[in-house]
């Protein structure tokens, strides 16, 4: 059979179809925007889906207050460019209690400032659908998740009892309080994401490119000292090293890699040679192999 479309073209068409279906069938959708490369691609696809109109839903960022500064600048610029409303939500109680990754540990901090914060925001705005940029190739419990993934009124995921999802016919029905998490990038791989960014010239946060940055090394993980809140240990002093990030999150929890890759081509090249997965740079995923599923069951994205 002649295959008339390239792999990226197929993926793009599938994602656009998913995004439109949500806009058409859900009462109040929102696009979760985490500012990373996957979010950048998802936002780009949403703009394509509704061109020349802006996407008919807002963007929402759950701000833990510990994001890289460059991410926040980038976020505001991209939302404005897309002509979309940007909702920024922070768990104010958590902030008042000064919950941070240093004193409270990554897992409690993530629970309060990310998972709880997200649930608060979804409840507050009564969103019945939330787009997320997760991909099935990221992690083995993600590989099991539906594209339209049902959540109970308490945001719980029941992996053993998912709705059958046949063909491209998505069951979007929810009762009051229930919602659906939608993953338009389910079938993309990390390589697809980079290739698409390259092909479509999609802007991404400069932190993905190598630069000289102030870092410290802890237990083999290179952490960037992004602001003065980072407590330094005795004898520790930030070194300028040529590094970049494969994935972006909260700076104290995101490991950098030593790299000189300063163009997209070089990034892709480096990725192809890499022997570890991008998740190895995320400290919250190390805990154990069931940790991601557990977090997701409790409402984490």
């Amino acid at each position, binding site marked *: 059979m002649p295959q008339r479309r390239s792999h990226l073209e197929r993926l793009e068409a599938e994602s656009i179809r998913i995004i*439109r279906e949500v806009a*058409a069938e859900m009462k109040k959708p929102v696009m979760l925007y985490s500012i990373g490369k996957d979010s950048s691609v998802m936002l780009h696809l949403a703009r394509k889906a*509704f061109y020349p109109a802006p996407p008919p839903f807002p963007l929402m960022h759950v701000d833990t207050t510990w994001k890289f500064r460059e991410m926040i600048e980038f976020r505001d610029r991209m939302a404005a460019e897309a002509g979309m409303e940007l909702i920024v939500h922070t768990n104010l109680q958590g902030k008042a209690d000064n919950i941070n990754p240093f004193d409270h540990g990554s897992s409690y901090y993530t629970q309060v400032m990310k998972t709880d914060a997200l649930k608060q925001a979804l409840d507050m705005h009564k969103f019945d659908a939330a787009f997320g940029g997760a991909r099935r190739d990221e992690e*083995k419990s993600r590989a099991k998740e539906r594209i339209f993934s049902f959540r109970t009124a308490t945001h719980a995921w029941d992996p053993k009892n998912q709705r*059958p999802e046949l*063909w491209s016919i998505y069951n979007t029905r929810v009762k009051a309080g229930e919602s659906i998490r939608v993953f338009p990038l389910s079938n993309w*791989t990390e390589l697809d994401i980079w290739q698409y960014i390259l092909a479509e010239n999609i802007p991404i946060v400069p932190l993905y490119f190598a630069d000289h940055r102030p870092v410290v090394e802890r237990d083999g993980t290179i952490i960037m000292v992004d602001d003065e809140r980072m407590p330094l240990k005795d004898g520790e002093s930030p070194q300028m090293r040529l590094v970049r990030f494969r994935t972006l999150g909260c700076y104290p929890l995101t490991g950098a890699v030593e790299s000189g890759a300063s163009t997209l081509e070089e990034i892709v090249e480096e990725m192809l040679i890499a022997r570890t997965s991008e998740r190895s740079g995320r400290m919250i995923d190390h805990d154990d192999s069931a940790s991601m599923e557990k977090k997701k069951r409790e409402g984490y994205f």
Partner: protein
Amino acid sequence: MNELTEISANITDYLAEQENKGFLRFITCGSVDDGKSTLIGRLLFDTKLIFEDQLAALERDSKKHGTLGDDIDFALLVDGLEAEREQGITIDVAYRFFATDKRKFIVADTPGHEQYTRNMATGASTADLAVILIDARKGVLTQTRRHSFIVSLLGIRHVVVAVNKMDLVDYSEERFREIEQAYRAFGETFDFETLEIVPVSALKGDNIMERSPVMPWYQGKSLLDHLNTVEIGSDEAERPFRMPVQWVNRPNLDFRGYCGTVVSGTVRPGDKVVIAKSGRATEISRIVSMDGDLDEAVSGDSITLLLKDEVDISRGDVICASDSRAEVADQFSAHLIWMSDEALYPGRPYLLKTGTQTVTATVTELKHKIDVNSFEHLAAKEMHLNEVAFCNLSLSSPIAFDPYETNREMGSFILIDRFTNQTVGAGVIWYALRRASNIHLQALDVDKTAHADLKGQKPAVLWFTGLSGAGKSTIANLVEKKLHARGRHTYLLDGDNVRHGLNRDLGFTEADRVENIRRVGEVAKLFVDAGLITLVSFISPFRAERQMARNLVADDEFIEIYVSTPLSVAEERDPKGLYRKARDGQLKNFTGIDSPYEEPENAQLVLDTVGNDADVLADQVIRYLEDNGYIGR
């Protein structure tokens, strides 16, 4: 990554090459423990898709959960849910990606367990090829047949049978030939376009990537070699153009774009098209995209079309090639896979979603069930979890479709339970029932309005529902007397009376109860048509059936009246001594005792019988009719 050395040479060339690779979606299926997940794990591992940190995790997991002592258990790469790892089985589909230098693959690893057949069907619905595994020690099992049948039903035309665990039968050619023969004996009936049978060991990697020296007697291709080269089917882009409208894009008054995914065919500006349901014809004027207007779009593309004329089109319409339109019908025959623990009964309404259209549907007739082992046709009154049946469906309004055989996207649908919102069934359409088009409704000159005008009233169904002994008949009777006294034209249909005549042939099984209500609903509809205020007094315990009765008449013609009495009170009243019999076990399926009563969620009236006189409650109904203009004051 296996082409590591070539990469650095020229990354742009490398990427271009990646882009132009072929693409194949396939599944692994077959009986429990035949080695499906192990096979996928093996493919991921051998195509070097496993990173070092993932491999370290796999080694740790293998020690903890694995079935192989200290050896690597490849299934754990794929069985990603906690429950799966603990039980050592697959519960839900895993979608994994890998590539060779020829093709990119999306593979869905599906569960072998019968209980999770719906998840197997989920994986199969989007695949073009199925790898069906057979344990060499066990041979062809019922589950092998069931999966082969579903694979064929869902339109997969290419099958590879992998006879696995050859290492456990000493790589015996004789054993392999035996199984090969057994499979071909029934596999032929499915008429797959390609059917390859390969002896493998997923665990050891024999005949997976390349032909293994341990089975020199096997002269065919290795599994991967076959996946790399098998030619898949016809060209969707050559079929007639179809685009279900998903979204109407109206950023301003001058722009009206119709968004959707082309599910078959090719479209270009200037093409003549027709809107399937309305039959309106027009022409494509532009194909708009963020990268500029397009000259052409083909099957699979998600696009925005502008049309030459202002035609009334909304979500759910299908834009078709004008010389080859989709069919439009409200009754058709289909194969249905049932996916819910709760049985399907003919007559019960569900939501049917196909493409971008959603309508209400009922199964009007179960023609036969299919025995998945013998493929025999069996008579059926209801359908249970994981069963497959051939049936007739009737819809609340017509849909545009093509038979599944000719168009997978236009001929598939799911059924959704209206109350739980669960996806309970999946179906493939075979053909429209001509009955719908041949029996045109006779347009009658003396119509409903004429009947009602003469009587000076607005006809409606007063549907009294509640437990046995709740007081439905007493109240309905009083209401009818009061209406009659005012000179209103009425008729009262009472459960017990109807069961003596019209519904004499029905018992109290769930299926019969559904049919009981369906008939009464239809009779009530005719009476409303005759201009009567029709009182219906039936326990009618299920929401779905009351909804079905409601759907038969106009929105404001159905008044649901919940006669609310706690079970304990009804049981104490026990006017006919039925509760006592039910408690003694002499009466089966008695509502409230061993059969459920589903309380109405949106009744127009709730009559609380505890501490209220029946006459007062009857007046409450009369007042409702006055207040809402059904009768004068």
